[in-house]
């Protein structure tokens, strides 16, 4: 991810999608959870070179529901376990999730879902 080291503290980045502007932080996470829509998720994924498919959306939608209920983005271990419970054991494992989200399932999927970076994520 490109970071401007000389201007790191003052970055005020916005992401343009279909003429709509979304404010993001220096790591590309959406500033306002409520500003999220499917367009911005698709745009983020395309910028990373891997357009979203149904398997990605299952995880993204799960994350949004989890945040709605618990007010946090789950740590990767929790994500893996819950996906296994909800979508089946064949999906509740690191291999499957890392194939979908090679930058780290919790980090990358949370970004596409418009959530803050997961708590407990280092």
């Amino acid at each position, binding site marked *: 991810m490109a970071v401007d080291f000389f201007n790191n503290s003052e970055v005020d980045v916005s992401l343009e999608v279909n003429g709509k502007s979304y404010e993001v932080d220096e790591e590309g996470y959406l500033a306002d959870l409520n500003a999220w829509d499917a367009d911005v998720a698709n745009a983020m994924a395309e910028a990373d070179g891997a357009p979203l498919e149904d398997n990605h959306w299952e995880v993204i939608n799960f994350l949004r529901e989890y945040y709605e209920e618990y007010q946090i983005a789950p740590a990767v271990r929790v994500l893996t376990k*819950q996906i296994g419970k909800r979508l089946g054991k064949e999906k509740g494992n690191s291999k499957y999730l890392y194939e979908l989200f090679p930058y780290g399932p919790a980090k990358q999927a949370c970004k596409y879902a418009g959530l803050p970076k997961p708590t407990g994520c280092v």
Partner: protein
Amino acid sequence: MSEEGIVKKFMYVNRKSPYGTIYALESLEVVLITAAFDQDVSLTFTDDGVYQLMKDQKTDGIGMKNFSSTYSALGDYEIKKIFIDKESLEERGLSVSDLQELVWEDEDEDYAEKSSINLVSRAELSNIMSQQDIVMSF
């Protein structure tokens, strides 16, 4: 994240009401981080800390984020030991039914929900504390 490592017994002791200071929220944050490192984490709620688990919290009037629903995620983080100081509840005219139910899911029993809440006396609490490697007070 889950490489072989030393697992220590961490207890986080919550003593303050949820919104007057930042302690409750900060404690919760540290608890989740510790649990994400696969440590053995337990929580104690004592003194005004018992208010952190009150049901039906509404924070609209004070303009703060209501983070009480996050306690329900503790089970997902494998935190299964929540100790409530019985005397602190009684001193405040509360009982355990005024508090949120906190559960964890037992994967080996088809995700059966089991209670994480343990109502304990101060004498018992002191005994449990003495068995910890690390006790942090918030």
